[in-house]
């Protein structure tokens, strides 16, 4: 829609920033914004466009992180293969979940996804022989692009930017293509969509699969960037909530929204961490108190999130045309 110029500015700024900014702290923040933004955009494909609200997306993120880490440490091949492998496994699982839970609507689907991510959490933290159990996996640093052993954070910005743009373009596709409209119809009224001949089930499953694969890719890159995979973090409900939070605050079912949401949340979080790290680490939770309140407010008064709210203001002042 009209958000495309805004998105172009956002991504161009992110891509050009490394040319100007040399500060490792700021670049680290930018990488995290793009990773969490991509993950939120991936969540948005299932949660926003298809209306399949999941609070178990950390399962796919963790799968990607583990696939990349295990492939590197156990078989000593490139993490890019791990990324691909993670995406394939996540797609397969997304397929199974999509088909099995197809009947489930609303809170039932949420419960099923939470349960699934908890199963993976237990497997990840207890299956010592394969996943190293609760200790997690440190990812070895082997210099080179092929091994993703990159010390220069500027290169990382460009790598995750590519993923972010891909995630954004999927959103744009869903906003403009016939399939996207069909998916929106399924989300708004599945029975009506079915009666018009929309293949509701197939569309929903496809959305979940795409969302899962993209989330896994985020997890794989994140694991290589951070250099450590902790099962209690990558499979946590908190992480799933983080994806959903960024997407809802930014704008449910909008292409740019998840990135704006992630930028807002990550900025405040990083700032508080820098301020209160160490002794007052508990105070970092303040940002989640704020965003929890924001979430409650947003779903009630601005269901289209930040993007929808801004669009509404612009339209009211005649700056952009009405929605098609």
């Amino acid at each position, binding site marked *: 829609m009209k958000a495309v110029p805004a998105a172009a500015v956002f991504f161009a700024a992110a891509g050009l920033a490394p040319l100007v900014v040399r500060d490792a702290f700021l670049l680290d923040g930018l990488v995290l914004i793009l990773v969490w933004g991509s993950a939120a955009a991936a969540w948005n494909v299932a949660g926003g466009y298809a209306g399949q609200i999941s609070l178990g997306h950390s399962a796919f993120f963790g799968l990607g992180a583990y696939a990349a880490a295990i492939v590197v440490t156990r078989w000593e091949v490139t993490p890019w293969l791990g990324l691909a492998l993670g995406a394939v496994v996540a797609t397969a699982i997304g397929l199974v979940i999509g088909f099995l839970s197809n009947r489930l609507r609303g809170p039932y689907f949420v419960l099923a996804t*939470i349960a699934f991510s908890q199963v993976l959490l237990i497997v990840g933290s207890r299956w010592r022989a394969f996943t190293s159990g609760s200790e997690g996996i440190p990812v070895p640093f082997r210099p080179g692009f092929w091994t993703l052993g990159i010390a220069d954070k500027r290169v990382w910005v460009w790598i995750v930017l590519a993923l972010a743009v891909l995630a954004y373009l999927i959103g744009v596709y869903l906003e403009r293509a016939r399939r996207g409209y069909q998916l929106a119809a399924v989300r708004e009224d599945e029975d009506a969509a079915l009666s018009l001949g929309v293949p509701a089930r197939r569309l929903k499953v496809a959305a979940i699969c795409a969302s899962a694969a993209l989330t896994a890719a985020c997890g794989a890159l994140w694991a290589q960037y951070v250099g450590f995979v902790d099962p209690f973090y990558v499979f946590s409900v908190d992480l799933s909530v983080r994806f959903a939070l960024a997407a809802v605050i930014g704008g449910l079912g909008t292409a740019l929204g998840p990135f704006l949401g992630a930028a807002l949340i990550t900025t405040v979080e990083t700032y508080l961490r820098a301020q209160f790290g160490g002794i007052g680490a508990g105070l970092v939770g303040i940002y989640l108190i704020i965003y*929890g309140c924001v979430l*409650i407010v947003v779903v*009630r008064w601005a269901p289209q999130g930040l993007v929808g709210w801004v669009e509404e203001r612009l339209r009211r002042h005649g700056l952009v045309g009405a929605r098609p």
Partner: protein
Amino acid sequence: MNAIPQLVISTLLLGGVYALIAVGLTIIFGVMRVVNFAHGEFLMLGMYLAFWAFTLLGFDPYLTLVLSLPVWLAVGWASYRAVMGPVVNASHNVQVFTTVGLSIVLQNLALVLWTADVRFVRTAYYAVVVRIGGAAFNVAQIVAFGIAVALTAALFAFMRWSYTGKIMRATAQDRQASALMGIDTDRVYALTWAVGITCVGAAGALLAPIYPVYPTAGLQFVLIAYVSVVLGGLGDMAGALIASLLVATVEVFGSYLIGTAWKEVLYLLLFIAILVVRPAGLFGQRGAEALGT
């Protein structure tokens, strides 16, 4: 196998407390059609309340429980008026996000106020063991079971025979018709929410002498409550009670047979299987989940 009596009684004790958590969740769903994703956080707050009353004032957790019942009713009523009331007729997704938002706020409030430290309520009787036949039991567990059963029974009686309980059940059956009959459904929802929160707050006080207290302590219990509630049919109180005992059986016998490390996997897989095969639960009406109720 002389372990059987111990396992059976362990199951009963565990199931009783699970039931109290599950009943609060299912009554809210049954009447309001809302799955409360902040349920675990209210449980956690109940545990903290018992902890602070014990540490600062020297109150026994069971005394706290009795004293806190009106407090929880008030907290429930206030949180309904502030947060849940405005979305009670909104779409499911809005309700999911609202309760998730509430859960984020409460959990991090506990984190900021009381840090992530794991705390314990060390009553004088926490290590006292009772022997029944060949089996040994913690006193706190037995007391928790007794109180949980009494509270659940009281709630059953309230729903079954009191006039207010009848009104609540009528609203659960058909909110439009009951509104037409002159029932103030908004007040019924507020009361339901308050009663559900009171159940889980009381359960927190019961759990405090047995389990460690920390900001995310609610999650493990509320997962079990979700399993029980879905298994029993969302909104079905008797179903939740039986299912709580079933889940406790799976947990106790599972950890005995295959070890404690993997016991959670058992009931989570059971949960997923139920959701896939019969989401309406063992006793619920078929098709309820597809209607989006």
